[in-house]
């Protein structure tokens, strides 16, 4: 009895003590778990070319932009209270390596989002993986139109960069509106990039009812385009729309000088890559007009970012690559905060319905994406640019001032 009593006596106060102990242990464990989660970083990654092809230049600068955004977000407390950990994977410009990186990042590293790539071909090679594994991808550089095309039910690719079709729409809108452009010629590379560009140009020209007087092609390794230019000259072309990488574009303007034939030249953002001024030289590099996502820095934030990463840029005129990459991180972070989660489905849904504007380096993004629209920047957002005294500056003229949204047929 005594025993029982004792036991009972002993047991009665022991229960609350045990409960209290268990409770304390649980609290400690929960706190530790919360602390562990708070300290547990969210992995984000860049998968793109930073060493293998001439386009690697935009990849290297994009990584600097993403790194700066990660630094800024971590300073203000991270995303959902967790710091960001930034992984960089070089795909060397090779699709097989890019696919390998992608599966490694998703399956082994368990990243929450992938940024990049640099080369369109690599994005097209792995975009099905991102869609199947529900991995949000914010494309920060590659410009092929088809990258963001996907099933409306499961398209996880978004972009804050140039889009080839949009560039073609912008260039031809200008040419159509320009009364001095009476005969237009298309000059394209024989690469996949050039051929896809020609297809976009031809389709959009048809929408405008325009017929090019000359369509000429050249190899990306060509250094003398005088024969193609002679034909365009004979056909009376006064305006050329060119779809080529930086170095062949440089050789094209050098060939124009040899023939003393200087039609107006409109081209893509490739003209802002270092290879173009290097090959064209200080005088001829000022001839073409081209598109970028940001030419001159116009905000204090952009100046501040430039002060941080500008000294690391071999070609400061490619600062746009850092700006747009910086913005991809801000947009993803805003979507994750809005969703309260970093899971692919939740982030994708939030990206498609961002309820607060995001102030980025290129622009303020007010509902940039929807279920059917995954392009953060479109033709009307592009900056018209040209080289002047070694810098990329804004290009302005009355034709440009008169362009209306309806002119951008696509």
């Amino acid at each position: 009895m005594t025993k029982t009593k004792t036991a009972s006596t002993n047991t009665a106060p022991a229960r609350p003590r045990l409960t209290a102990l268990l409770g304390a242990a649980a609290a400690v464990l929960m706190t530790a778990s919360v602390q562990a989660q708070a300290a547990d970083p969210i992995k984000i990654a860049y998968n793109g070319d930073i060493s293998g092809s001439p386009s690697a230049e935009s990849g290297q600068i994009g990584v600097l932009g993403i790194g700066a955004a990660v630094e800024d977000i971590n300073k203000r407390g991270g995303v959902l209270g967790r710091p960001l950990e930034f992984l960089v994977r070089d795909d060397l410009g090779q699709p097989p390596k890019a696919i390998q990186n992608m599966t490694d990042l998703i399956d082994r590293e368990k990243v929450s989002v992938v940024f990049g790539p640099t080369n369109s071909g690599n994005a097209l090679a792995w975009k099905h993986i991102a869609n199947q594994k529900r991995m949000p991808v914010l494309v920060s550089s590659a410009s092929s139109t088809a990258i963001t095309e996907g099933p409306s039910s499961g398209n996880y690719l978004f972009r804050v960069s140039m889009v080839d079709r949009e560039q073609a729409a912008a260039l031809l809108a200008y040419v159509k509106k320009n009364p001095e452009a009476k005969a237009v010629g298309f000059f394209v590379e024989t690469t996949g990039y050039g051929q896809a560009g020609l297809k976009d140009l031809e389709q959009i020209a048809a929408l405008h009812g325009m017929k090019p007087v000359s369509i000429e092609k050249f190899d990306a390794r060509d250094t003398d385009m005088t024969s193609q230019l002679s034909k365009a000259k004979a056909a009376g072309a006064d305006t050329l729309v060119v779809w080529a990488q930086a170095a062949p574009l440089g050789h094209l303007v050098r060939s124009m000088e040899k023939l003393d034939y200087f039609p107006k030249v409109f081209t893509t953002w490739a003209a802002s890559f270092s290879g173009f001024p290097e090959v064209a030289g200080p005088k001829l590099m000022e001839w073409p007009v081209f598109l970028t996502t940001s030419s001159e820095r116009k905000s204090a934030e952009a100046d501040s970012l430039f002060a941080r990463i500008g000294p690391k840029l071999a070609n400061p005129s490619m600062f746009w690559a850092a700006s747009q990459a910086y913005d991809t991180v801000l947009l993803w972070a805003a979507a994750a905060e809005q969703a309260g989660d970093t899971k692919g489905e939740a982030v994708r849904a939030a990206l498609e319905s961002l309820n607060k504007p995001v102030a980025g380096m290129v622009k303020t993004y007010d509902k940039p994406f929807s279920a059917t629209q995954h392009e953060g920047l479109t033709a009307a957002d592009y900056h018209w640019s040209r080289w002047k005294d070694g810098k990329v500056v804004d290009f302005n003229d009355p034709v440009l001032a008169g362009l209306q949204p309806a002119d951008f047929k696509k």
Partner: protein
Amino acid sequence: MLQAIIGGLTLGSVYALIALGFNLTYTTTRTLNFAQGDFVSVGAFVGLGTVGVLTAALGADAVGYVWLYALAAVAAALVMGVLGLPLYLAAIRPFAGKPGMSWVVSTIGFGIVLQSAALSVWGLGARMLPAPFGDEVFRIGEAGFRSQELVVLVLAVAILGAFDVAMRRTAIGRCMRAVALNRDAAALMGIDVPRVMAMAFLASSALAGLSGVLVAPILSASLFMGVIIALKGFSAAIIGGLTNPRGCMAGGLLIGLVESLTALWSAQWREIMVFLLVILVLAMAPNGLFGRKLVEKV
């Protein structure tokens, strides 16, 4: 038309220099340096580096740029020529004179090592080496030329001529011809055959490096530019005859003209026409237009 002819002869003369390099190594060792393209590319960058270093050391206006460019050309020829020796020792000597084609892989491998090392130093981008006599365009009628095209044409023809004379008049030239004619007999006559073989690789690599500096102001230097130049040079050697140095030179000029004149009609047909010509010549004269059949005892 005049523009196409001058342009074709300019590039053709560079193909001829490369073809001559193939001839030198083939006749003396029965092997070819498949890294020749990488020697062209890296040679151009050695030239660029030399100009940079000299400008930094002496100041931009210390001596005329013509002299800087000349020194860069000499440096590229020397550096690439000296690099031809390890190529010979590591990738050719163990396999020369033996059956099998191991030297194909070993020379390609040497080229990849060279290119990768250069990529880590100079990166991927295209660079323009300024032309020694300026970048202005001269006009003859409607055709326009840059001074460097004429420099390349004149220098390449002069070098080809000098080689032709050296091969016939100098002791080392005669030794090379003797080794090419009959290796065993040359050895019996007291000629140091391995030394002559090494000299052939040195000369061939130096020619490739010099070619790189010559074309860099026209084509812009990139570490990938050499592949197509070497391929055309090899085609020139095949067309002209790998065993005949003068044939190789003629083959180079012919290929340059064919691709340039084809471009007048359709630029996309240039490569097709060049390699159709190679196939046609090989079908009609398997040893090239001026080559002779070499009997290899195994």
